Every structure is written in structure tokens, then in C-alpha cells.
């Protein structure tokens, strides 16, 4: 099987200049590979660096060492060293990412957010929002005032509409009730059946068991009593 995404000896250290240059190693020697149609779940305790790793795969956090090989337009491209333009092209065509929280754009309605990610197809956007139980009356409203669960479902619709070959999922069901959780499990399975390679973080064991083919354990690098530092990284990271 073709590897769609391969992490090779990834390393990440946060240096907090505002705290006297404190250096916090988070990841080292991370290596794995994900094939088309396969779902890899990152496992490990809170603060181990799973979300950090996912953000690195998306090119959102920079790697201090190693490579992230992504199958893009028929060739392997290293996200860890790619030019900004190449990363944007990868995100536009190959790599999708569903974060835990929706970053809302002022004034843009829910359907606009989803349609924009799906090349402007408003009918497909409406279908997907309906599937995720977002009623029609909410489609034309900006999601800033939606509940956490509704925002997460808008975010999921945005992530799934474009059907990109590689998908990164950070706790996609964290704020969802059982019914919506099962809908998302169905969507993940359909994506896998289409050949989408998925890397995800699923704290909910039922979801993980339903979608994951393999686990990749992410282990904390530091002394456990130091671990909470990794949540205080340079700032800005928090949303």
C-alpha cells in the first residue's frame, strides 16, 4: 500500500523566551506511516504532545528536526521544510484538518464557512450540515453564537466536505452527544472507504475502537511533575 503520510524522526522543543528561555522538549524520534484508507490513532496521556504532533503534521507548528512526507500531486513533499506557498497548496488540495474549536470569521454564515471549504458548493454544504443535525434556520447565521457542539459540527462539515486524501482529526467528537457521535463515526468510516488516510486523536474509546486501525503511542518526554509546562507554551497557541 502507498504511504500517504510518513513522519520520520520528528522532534519538537518549545523555547519560551518570555520565561528566561526555558526549553521544553515535547517530541523526539516520532516516526510512523499511514496508508490510504487507514486510520492511525495517536494515544497517550493528556499533555504528552498529541495535539502538538497533529499541528506539526498540518504545518501549523514547525518541526525542529525530522521530516513529514506527504503524498501531494503524485510526489512526496516534506511539510517540515516546504515553502509557505507549498504548504498552502497542500492544505487546499491534499491535507484537511479538523481542530477541536471553530475559528469563526466575523459575519460569515455557517453555510458560507462550509461551502468555502468545498469549492463554493452550497447545496453540498447544506446536505452535510443537515446530516450533522444543524437545522436550516442556523445555516444563514454566523456560528459565533452557536453552542460548542454546534460549532464543532460546523467545523466537521468544513473538514469533510472537500474529501481531501489525508485528514487530521483532533478530538472530532469531544463536544458531541451520542447520536451525533455516531454520525461522525459513520462519516469517518466512509472517508476511509474512499481511501482517505486519517491521523486522529480520539479520547472517547468507543469512537477510537470504531474507526482506528492502529495506535501510535505518544509518550511524555519529561518528568511527569514538569508536564504541565507543555500547556504553557509560548502563548498564542492556546485557543
Amino acid at each position, binding site marked *: 500500500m502507498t504511504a500517504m503520510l510518513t513522519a520520520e524522526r520528528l522532534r519538537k522543543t518549545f*523555547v*519560551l*523566551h*518570555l520565561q528566561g528561555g526555558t526549553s521544553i522538549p515535547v517530541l523526539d524520534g516520532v516516526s510512523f506511516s499511514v496508508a490510504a484508507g487507514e486510520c492511525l490513532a495517536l494515544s497517550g496521556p493528556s499533555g504528552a504532545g498529541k495535539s502538538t504532533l497533529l*499541528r506539526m503534521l498540518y*504545518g*501549523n*507548528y*514547525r518541526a525542529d528536526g525530522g521530516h513529514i512526507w506527504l503524498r501531494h500531486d503524485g510526489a512526496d513533499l516534506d511539510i517540515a521544510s516546504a515553502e*509557505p*506557498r507549498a*504548504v*498552502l497548496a497542500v492544505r487546499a488540495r491534499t491535507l484537511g484538518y479538523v481542530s477541536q474549536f471553530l475559528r469563526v*470569521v*466575523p*459575519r*460569515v454564515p455557517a453555510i458560507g464557512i462550509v461551502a468555502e471549504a468545498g469549492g463554493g458548493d452550497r447545496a453540498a454544504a447544506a446536505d452535510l450540515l443537515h446530516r450533522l443535525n444543524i437545522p436550516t434556520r442556523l445555516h444563514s447565521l454566523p456560528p459565533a453564537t452557536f453552542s460548542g457542539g454546534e460549532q464543532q459540527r460546523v467545523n466537521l462539515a468544513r473538514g469533510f466536505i472537500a474529501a481531501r486524501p489525508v485528514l487530521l482529526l483532533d478530538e472530532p467528537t469531544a463536544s458531541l452527544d451520542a447520536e451525533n457521535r455516531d454520525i461522525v463515526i459513520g462519516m469517518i468510516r466512509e472517508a476511509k472507504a474512499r481511501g482517505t488516510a486519517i491521523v486522529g486523536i480520539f479520547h472517547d474509546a468507543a469512537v477510537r475502537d470504531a474507526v482506528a486501525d492502529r495506535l501510535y503511542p505518544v509518550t511524555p518526554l519529561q518528568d511527569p511533575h514538569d508536564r504541565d509546562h507543555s500547556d504553557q507554551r*509560548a*502563548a*498564542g*497557541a*492556546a485557543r
Partner: protein
Amino acid sequence: MADDTLLAARGLSRRFGAVQALDNVDAELWPGEVLAIVGESGSGKTTLLDVLSGRLRPDRGVAWYRDPAGALHDVHAMPEPMLRALHRSDWGFVRQNPRDALRLGVTAGGNVGERLMAQGARHYGRIRDTAQDWLERVEIDASRMDDLPRTFSGGMLQRLQIARTLVTHPRLVFMDEPTGGLDVSVQARLLDLIRTLVANLHIAVVLVTHDLSVARLLAHRIMVMQRGCVVESGLTDQVLDDPHHPYTQLLVSSVLQA
């Protein structure tokens, strides 16, 4: 520079008396790309904008612009009439204060139509139709077309300036704090308009702002300036979410979370 670079600068330096406003700055811009220049007051970002747009000469360094035919022009070696013609057609400049760019004694429609006439348009009916179309695109009611800008609110004036700038379909627009000094609700509307228009028309933008959330919303790439130097640059979300330089970390950590 690569074949499709729209604007490129190498080693730009500029001193004002004892102050090094720009210190060996490189920059590059692709067609359709939005580049934000961020930093505090006095970091040199407006000086960089003025030098890139040819309004100010650098002491050292060079900036090139590639015209639609593919020919490169040294921005500071261009004959003055050619630079002025560029600013009337291929380029646009959106200032923080719309009153500096608009003609306050000319109607809203006239302000938009004037830039078309400067490009050689002469057919009154067509100019008026285009002006009306652009006022609608920036959400100014057509009934205000013959009103003078002095009767407009700050947000409307800024939207009028954007219509006046974009009516000639420029390929490159320089923006200096386009949402500065506006109420937040007015800012949101303006940001959404700029975001949509720039993406739909595939316009490249050099955007100067001190507001990181404006940069996040509009820009593909970001350059962080401090004391005339570029201290960090890269993808907007990368630089803002994983800042490496001490000054960028300070800027990002100083933003209030709403």
C-alpha cells in the same frame, strides 16, 4: 527571483537621521498573495510599505515589480510618470484615513469614476454604471451615489476608498492599517469585504497592521518587524501559533483573548 514573483525586494535600508527605519529587508510577493507586515509603532512597517510602493527611496537595496507583460521594473529607477501611471492602474493604495485618499468635494460616484477616467475611460454612462456596481459591492446603497463623502460615516468612507481603489482591477494593493480607528462591528464588516474581494479578484496585497487578528484573518504570510529588521516570517498561522523569536512571542502573548 522566480518567474511568477510579482514584487521582490532585496537589502532595503533606509535611515531617518539617527533612526535606522529599515535595515537590510528582503521581501517577496506572489500574484494573489496577501502579505501582512506586523510590528509595533516605529518598527519600520510603514516605511517598508512606502519604499515598496515607490513613495520613498531606500538608501540601499532594490525593489522590482513585474508588469503584466512579464517585464521587470526597478521601482525606484522608473521614470516618475510611469510610477504615477502604475499607481493609477495596476497598483492601488488604501490608507488608514480615507479622507487622505478621497476627494471630499466630489460625489461618492465621482470618487470611484474618477479613477476610471484617469485610466482613459470617457463614456459617462458606462463609468456611472461601473461606479454604481462598485458602490454596491462595498455595500454602499446606490441612493448615496450622488452624495458627498462628508455625509458618510467612517466605515462608509473606508468602503468608498476601497471601491475607488479596486475599480481599476489592480493586481497589487498596498494597505496601511485599513481598519485602524474604526469601531469593531464596522471593522468586522470591512475585513469580511476585503477578504472576499481580494480572494475573488485574485489581488496581491501588502498589508501593514499592528493588529494580529487582522493579519490572521486576511494574510497568507506574515513578516514581523522590530526596529527596522524582519525578525521572523512565514505562514501566518505558523508564526502566530508557534512564534520562535522573542519579540514575536511578546507580541502574540500581549493580545487579549476575547
